């Protein structure tokens, strides 16, 4: 508008000032180096997948497609009898239990920190949550082995005695320790910090105007959370849960400490026995000769692919919800 009037007044169209756009040599190098560093993550990720698959290929070749439908560790002599079925089953069961237990607690914690806690104590609470992510998993395992497991066996056998008509609580081998459920419980506790910190971040971005509006219309705080905070953070919660699922899939030491290494494909989650991909790899390290090693590396590849897919989906969902898309205003 102003350029039009200016043009008509002076009779000449003003030329825009030309800003030199070519970067200095220094900056070109800087940008190149930074971009190259950014692209190394692709290289590393590719190398992980490639080498695990390459070195694990003998195992897949020895068993063919039966690799994924067999459970056993007969790698010593022909006919080979080994595979990934029991490990994959255990991994999935433990992760599902962990997510069912861990995610609600994490979301509750995130809601408390972002909506209930007084501003003064918020920083301290966040610090404790972050600390939870830094506590080594072997310490969780140690605690679970010596404190949680002895205490919980009474409860699990009670549940088994009275609710065995529900299939997952069934089974009749008495020591109800070292089970999928206890492993899942510990892993669930371990994923709380990461899920809580991501969901808290998403919740803290929920629009304050809508929140105050809901309160001003007479909503209680829980109604405000249900109508504003949770719908806003839905994407973030789903993404964070998947992030937690990814962590649970890969948890090694705590699962190994609790579960040991027993092949068992059972729907009875309270029963003794079971294994997971990660804990099997840790437990069987060095056993089974050349083919056994290939088997472990192939399992590593399977686990890597699993977690990569889950985490990619999770990060896509979280990033989208962070940018505010999918929010109806």
């Amino acid at each position, binding site marked *: 508008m102003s350029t039009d009037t200016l043009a008509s007044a002076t009779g000449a169209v003003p030329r825009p000032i030309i800003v030199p756009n070519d970067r200095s040599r220094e900056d070109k190098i800087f940008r190149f180096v930074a971009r190259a560093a950014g692209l*190394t993550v692709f290289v*590393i990720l590719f190398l992980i997948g490639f080498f695990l698959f390459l070195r694990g290929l003998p195992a897949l070749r020895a068993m063919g497609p039966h690799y994924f439908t067999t459970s056993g560790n007969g790698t010593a002599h022909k006919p080979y009898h080994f595979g990934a079925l029991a490990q994959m089953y255990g991994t999935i069961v433990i992760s599902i239990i962990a997510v069912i237990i861990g995610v609600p607690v994490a979301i509750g914690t995130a809601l408390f920190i972002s909506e209930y806690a007084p501003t003064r104590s918020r920083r301290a609470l966040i610090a404790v949550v972050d600390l939870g992510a830094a506590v080594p998993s072997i310490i969780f395992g140690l605690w679970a082995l010596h404190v949680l497991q002895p205490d919980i066996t009474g409860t699990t056998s009670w549940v088994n005695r009275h609710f065995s008509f529900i299939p997952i609580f069934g089974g009749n081998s008495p020591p109800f320790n070292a089970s999928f459920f206890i492993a899942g419980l510990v892993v669930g506790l371990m994923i709380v910090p990461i899920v809580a910190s991501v969901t808290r971040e998403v919740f803290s971005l929920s629009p304050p105007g809508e929140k105050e509006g809901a309160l001003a219309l007479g909503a209680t705080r829980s109604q405000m959370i249900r109508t504003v905070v949770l719908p806003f953070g839905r994407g973030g919660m789903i993404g964070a849960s998947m992030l937690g699922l990814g962590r649970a899939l890969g948890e090694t030491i705590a699962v190994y400490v609790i579960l040991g290494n027993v092949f068992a494909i059972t729907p009875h989650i309270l029963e003794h026995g079971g294994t997971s991909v990660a804990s099997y790899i840790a437990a069987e390290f060095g056993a089974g000769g050349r083919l056994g090693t290939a088997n472990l590396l192939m399992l590593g590849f399977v*686990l890597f692919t699993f977690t990569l897919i889950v985490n990619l989906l999770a990060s896509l969902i979280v990033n989208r919800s962070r940018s505010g898309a999918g929010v109806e205003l």
Partner: protein
Amino acid sequence: VTQVVPEVEDLLHTPTERRPPTVAADEGAGTHDGATMSEAVLTGNVRRVQMDPPRSTREFGLSSVAVLIATAISSWAVVWMFFYQLTLLSGALGFIVCWYACFLVMYWVVTALTVDRNAATDRIVTTVVASCTALMMGSLLFIIGWVFVRGVGHFTVGFLWRTMSFYQPADPHLFRDVGVGHAIVGTLEQVGLAALFAVPLAFLTAIFLNEVGGWGTRSVRTIVTAMSGVPSIVAGVFIYAIFIVPHVIGYSGFAAAMALFVLMLPAVTRTTEEVLRVVPGGLREASLALGASEWRTVRQVVLPTARSGLITAVVLGIAIAAGETAPLIFTSFGNNNMNLDVFHGPQGALPLVLYENIFQAQAVVVQLAFTAAFVLLMIVLILFVLARLLGRRRTSKGKFRRFVSARMRSLRKV
């Protein structure tokens, strides 16, 4: 409650003194009938308004606390009766779970009867959310405290520098002869080496994501997030597959450092990126407008501004890497003797000492594991607290950064 509202202006300016006193002050969401108020606004007849008694913003009074305590006690009694007298079940955990469920139901019913259902639901949600936090914080602090109590008893300063060369599981006087000095050295070397490789690369990646931008940013960010979820055992197995299986290098601290590098890189990148994101854009623009190159802007304005956050990112990454067990099994292998050479031969590490000893039958060996756990936890905690303290320190201001800030200030005055 009917009353005469004096003047609209009065209502606007000094509302608090004129309002009727708060009644009972205890309902969560009192029944609010806005019809009369809106009617008055619509008809313009604001001189006579029927007003509800205003709700107190303090929803939780003394009587509510009493209700809370009373329901807690009565539900405890009920559950105790059923739990111990009828089902004869041992185990504190099951009892607590049942008590909690019973308490929630009772609390809801009592609040719904005494106040109303909205308030009841609100309080149940508050209770559940608060107890989730208490559960999380409580179990975490309990674990830390428990390791402390179990481990501190046999801890001596000598434990920090002795090695496990004279390790005899059957020896009842184990603690006189052994320590974790070799493992501390191993952990420090491995984590230090990993940080040496990971930190510069992570900083550059974060700078690419946040400062350079452009082509590839989105996909790199997604990949970094996905890579931060790569299981620690996979990192170990990967180094095993790429280096140790083809005998490029043997079991060594260096191999462990490589595995930790794979884990540290995405973690430090993500924290660094978040730190860089809060550097005010005005500083960057001011620096560029003064003619500084992008590299100089990053080096002398962005990084100094974010310095404390960057230190936090590094220390936090180190703290997490120091506690990793799974990647070390395949790479540093573990060693009971002191091995200072990080490049040759198996090396001990603190998490490995734990891993190798917690399953042993002898009580004294398990105690050794506990004491090692105590040392490991202390190292992680000290690093964590250090990261927090450094993160709180004020940002350093380089010479150029100070110059840029001064220019911005003088510009604002104009």
